[in-house]
């Protein structure tokens, strides 16, 4: 009599365990960002391309310490960094022309290696590469391998150090995407809840730095097809997240 009871309870226990292990389908949402900015009041509104945005779980209040750290960070512009390391004005202009954080963001064309538009750092690196690789084309394409590390990507690495510290503070569940050339980006596979949308590192825009820290609600079933979440540095009735602008500090001179 006891045995059937035991068998029954054993089966019941087994079924409960099996059911508990069944994965519960998680309904996720998508947040479609559209970032439109003005470099200054007279400039047209345009998509902010190639800018990384982060989505941090929790409310603004829950992330207060992180937001304070974002707002307190020292502002260092690309121009100031390169001036500080003694880079040539030709290199600073070359980086500025395409809004590059490092020399990797655009190919180095021949006109920047020799001739009136030559960048001295590139010319020196090219001469070294010529000797090393014995081929002008390879020497030009691989020119960055013979640049000094701080010239090559010192500014980018400085930014990354700050970013990694902030990300560590933000915790392990941070999502990130980069906007496309039109300023659009998608955060996919998001659990429903409240998030803080932030760029963590202030974005250089004209003569200012812009920081975005806004609270966003994601509902289960939010789709990529829905109206985009508008982000800007200018107020407008459709803009859901307006950035805070600070003027660029003057570069320190030694």
């Amino acid at each position: 009599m006891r045995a059937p009871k035991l068998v029954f309870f054993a089966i019941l226990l087994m079924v409960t365990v099996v059911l508990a292990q069944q994965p519960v389908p998680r309904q996720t949402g998508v947040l479609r960002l559209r970032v439109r900015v003005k470099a200054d009041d007279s400039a047209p509104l345009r998509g902010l391309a190639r800018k990384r945005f982060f989505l941090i779980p929790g409310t603004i209040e829950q992330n207060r310490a992180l937001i304070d750290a974002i707002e307190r960070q020292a502002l260092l512009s690309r121009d100031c960094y390169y001036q500080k390391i003694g880079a040539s004005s030709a290199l600073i202009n070359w980086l500025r022309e395409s809004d590059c954080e490092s020399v990797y963001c655009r190919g180095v064309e021949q006109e920047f290696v020799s001739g009136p538009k030559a960048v001295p750092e590139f010319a020196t690196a090219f001469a070294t590469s010529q000797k090393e690789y014995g081929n002008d084309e390879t020497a030009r394409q691989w020119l960055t391998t013979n640049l000094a590390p701080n010239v090559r990507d010192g500014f980018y690495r400085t930014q990354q150090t700050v970013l990694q510290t902030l990300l560590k503070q933000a915790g392990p569940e941070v999502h990130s995407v980069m906007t496309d050339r039109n300023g659009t980006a998608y955060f996919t596979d998001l659990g429903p809840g409240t998030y803080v949308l932030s760029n963590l590192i202030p974005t250089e825009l004209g003569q200012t730095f812009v920081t975005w820290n806004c609270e966003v609600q994601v509902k289960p079933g939010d789709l990529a097809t829905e109206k985009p979440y508008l982000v800007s540095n200018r107020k407008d009735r459709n803009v859901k997240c307006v950035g805070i602008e600070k003027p660029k500090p003057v570069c320190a001179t030694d």
Partner: protein
Amino acid sequence: MTRIKTFTVFLFFFLICVHPRLSAADYSKFSHATQKHQAACNTCHKIPTKNATTFPDIKDYPDHDACVSCHRPQFFKGAKPVICSVCHSKTSPRDEARYAFRNPASKLQFTIEFPHDRHQDVIAMLRFSHAQQNYYNCTVCHASRTTTFKAAPADHSSCFNCHWKAQQPVATNCNGCHKLATPYVPITDPTRISIKFMHEGGGEKKQHIAECTTCHINITKAASLRGLKPDVPITGCTECHNKEGLRQDLNTELVAIDKNRNFTCVYCHAPNVGSLDPPASHYLIAERPALKRKDIK
């Protein structure tokens, strides 16, 4: 007693079969997984190899020294030592011909670590559109293979221009990108749902020239190649192909299904996909409730 004897005999044969020292090793196959083949990569692979003509690279098998140091007996075994067939297409002391490096017929022994997110940050920082288009971007690595598919890098040309030295992982740090794995056959053609889409040069007015991340929305967040999917949402297509006053390609085919449930969508899809039920995302874009073909009268 008889039981113990049987077990001992079984164990003896088992050990002969599976133990590498007791069984005959197959020297026609080379595995990086073998314990003694796991020394530093430059023990065998010298960089650059002699036939790297356009740029310094590893383009050939290691020299004989790399093998002979341990495998002298196998090297000089008979007229056609089987170990030679690992690299040489003909086993003869008078023929140096080798398979292409790496041998395309053999399974891959390493996976590749490539963080798209980090590379997007540094090589694709084109913020505002610019007249010149020769910036570093996805095409640095993904050239056109066919009009349908882009190519994946097949050599180091797109890596070493930055990673030859100084920028880690450098050329001598093979393990920075290549991780030993269970041998596998790589997938050459990815699965494409909308097989008729053509990249550059595609479109009736050849206007498929949007940048890659406009449609491949998850690339900029991908820290690894594992689990990487093309991830093109329907909005990537319908921004142009289902717009009021522009085109109604999606709506037209959904209406065609309303009239004939056996209609096959052909504008984007091949029949194997076009004859299935359109997914909910398609109906959502068309601002209609989703339907199943079987429910259409």
